[in-house]
């Protein structure tokens, strides 16, 4: 585990140790099957969660999967 970095998650600043999107989702305990992840106003494809690194100051939002009509 590396030193914590400061990111903004859903509008709130927080310190995380995760180095990638995949690690972040594990760290905060989110089920990846019901969300999409937005990094700096762009959706991160699920197949690149492990490769997508995080840097200090990143803005992340969790976009919930909804399907009602």
């Amino acid at each position: 585990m590396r030193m914590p970095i400061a990111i903004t998650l859903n509008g709130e600043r927080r310190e995380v140790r995760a180095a990638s999107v995949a690690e972040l989702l594990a760290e905060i305990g989110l089920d990846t099957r019901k969300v999409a992840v937005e990094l700096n106003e762009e959706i991160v494809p699920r197949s690149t969660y492990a490769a997508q690194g995080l840097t200090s100051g990143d803005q992340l939002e969790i976009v919930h999967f909804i399907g009602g009509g």
Partner: protein
Amino acid sequence: MNLDFSEAEIHRYSRHILLQQVGAVGQAKLRAARVLIVGAGGLGSPLAMYLAAAGVGTLGLIDHDTLELSNLQRQIAHTTERLGRNKADSAAETLHHLNPEVKVEVHQRRMDAATARELIPQYDIVCDGTDNFPTRFLLGDACHLLGRPLVSAAVLRFEGQLSVFRSHEGHGFPCQRCLHPEPPPDGLVPSCSEAGVLGAVTGVMGTLQATEVLKLILDIGETLTGRLLLWDALDARMRTIRLKRDLECALCGETPTITDIA
């Protein structure tokens, strides 16, 4: 393109024809267009009504369900007297009263793979206003494989989402599976009947969906192709985020594994 309009048509559509970006040519494009609306419910009601009022020449409405009392809190194309009737049939009656110039094709059946293969090629644009993930993924796959734009809206509680998918055109446009590769397992994401939805939220999202359809037909402005619009009614906050094509996507990626409509 047929630019002949009756006096009544010119009068009816005068506020459109006045718009520089629409005009008589745009109104003729709307009249020539064929749009399929899947689901005559909370999204499909305002969507179908605005498209009919706008003079979209042919509207296909598909819904296998019958109208229930709990639908009327948001599904405004229907009326209390029509409880028990098929929803596509009920909505068609409303559309006919709104604009008898519009041809409405009623499909009282469930959207399944065979129906998708048969109906989607008959229309220029497909709109998803369904209430379940299997049908949403079927439509996403079918529109990509059959080469039709998909204008997809979704709602839950106080939230709405909207996007336009045109991955079949290339240009690096993402498909629906680039956003969500798989439907969520049963029970993980609630439906409106389980978690509720504010009726007016479906009205806003269905109306935004209609606006995107009109922009596509008229070829004006910037559509939501490659972007996702998110609206939170409680915060009164609307924003759009970029979608990214997933090169490993099973549908539109470099080595697709979904090659047929199932």
